[in-house]
């Protein structure tokens, strides 16, 4: 009986991650009726929040009319598995999270933490958004970004390699190149 239900109702998970940081503003923004309802309208069934060192705890809930199910945890030894099974990723602007998600080819909304000084992270996020590899938002604009987004229109990201850098180093130091 349960199997039939599973087949007909495919899970579409939104994975929210703040990495090793504390980013209450993002977790709070996701845990609002507006954002949850917008995600539901876009066809997502579950929200899973990795909240890191944050102090704001979202409310666990099962799916109900107009809202996806919501669950959370603090840390995981490897969030790669969660990224792999997600249909949408909402992440803080850490480069590790960003590139790991892009390498997996998942639709990504990057939310910039305005409390961080000298926001080099926002430069990265904005540049990648300009190149249409992801969407960039602030906690206050997350709702609008979700309602306006079209994940199918995002451009896949081709990762650069470290080989050219290694070759440059060899040349500089006088080593024979590979």
């Amino acid at each position, binding site marked *: 009986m349960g199997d039939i239900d599973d087949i007909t109702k495919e899970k579409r998970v939104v994975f929210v991650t703040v990495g090793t940081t504390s980013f209450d503003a993002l977790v709070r923004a996701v845990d609002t009726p507006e954002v949850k309802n917008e995600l539901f309208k876009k066809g997502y069934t579950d929200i899973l929040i990795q909240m890191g060192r944050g102090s704001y705890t979202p409310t666990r809930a099962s799916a109900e009319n107009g809202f996806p199910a919501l669950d959370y945890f603090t840390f995981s*030894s490897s969030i790669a598995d969660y990224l792999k099974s997600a249909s949408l990723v909402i992440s803080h602007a850490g480069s*590790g999270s960003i*590139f790991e998600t892009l390498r997996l080819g998942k639709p990504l909304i990057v939310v910039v933490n305005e409390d*961080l000084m000298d926001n080099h992270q926002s430069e990265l996020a904005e540049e990648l958004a300009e190149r249409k590899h992801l969407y960039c938002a602030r906690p206050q604009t997350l709702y609008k970004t979700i309602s306006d987004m079209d994940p199918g229109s995002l451009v896949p990201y081709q990762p650069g390699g470290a080989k050219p*850098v290694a070759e440059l180093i060899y040349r500089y*130091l*006088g*080593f024979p190149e590979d």
Partner: protein
Amino acid sequence: MASSNIGVLLTIGVITVLVIRIIYVINRSRKPLHSKSPRSLSTLIVLGSGGHTAEMLNLLYVLQTERFKPRYYIAAATDNMSLQKHMCLRIPCSEALKEVGGAEFMQIYRSREVGQSYITSVGTTLVAIAHALWLMIKIRPQVILCNGPGTCIPLCVIAFLFKVCLLESDLFVLLTYLYCQVGC
């Protein structure tokens, strides 16, 4: 009268020599080392938090590590993820274990924590510089690899000073800015 003149001349002389030396070092840094192909160079690798370390490990994974021996890793005392754990995310854990076992891993005091006030940062930065100086004297690396975390600033400053003052012209510092894959 005479002694103050000599003092002034001496000061001007020293400053002139320093300026010429600095220009020479900066100029020479742009060109590849002329020395014959080295067998292996002792290498200091600076690790920062999160993305910095991930990118550095990406680079190390493709580098021919035989050429960069012995290897010393430096990370800030408060960067919480262990080097081994970081490596296990990117390369087979058995290789990570070998690397961590074969290299020396040290911790350095951080100049400034995220969110720390600028006033107290002055004091902690001085401590970080002193600690960096101690580590550099201990290790005396021939190559420094770093990609821009705050941890590397005292080390790079001291490396530059070593090049200028101690005539270590062959000390090579690779400073790549993080995110170069998105276009520098």
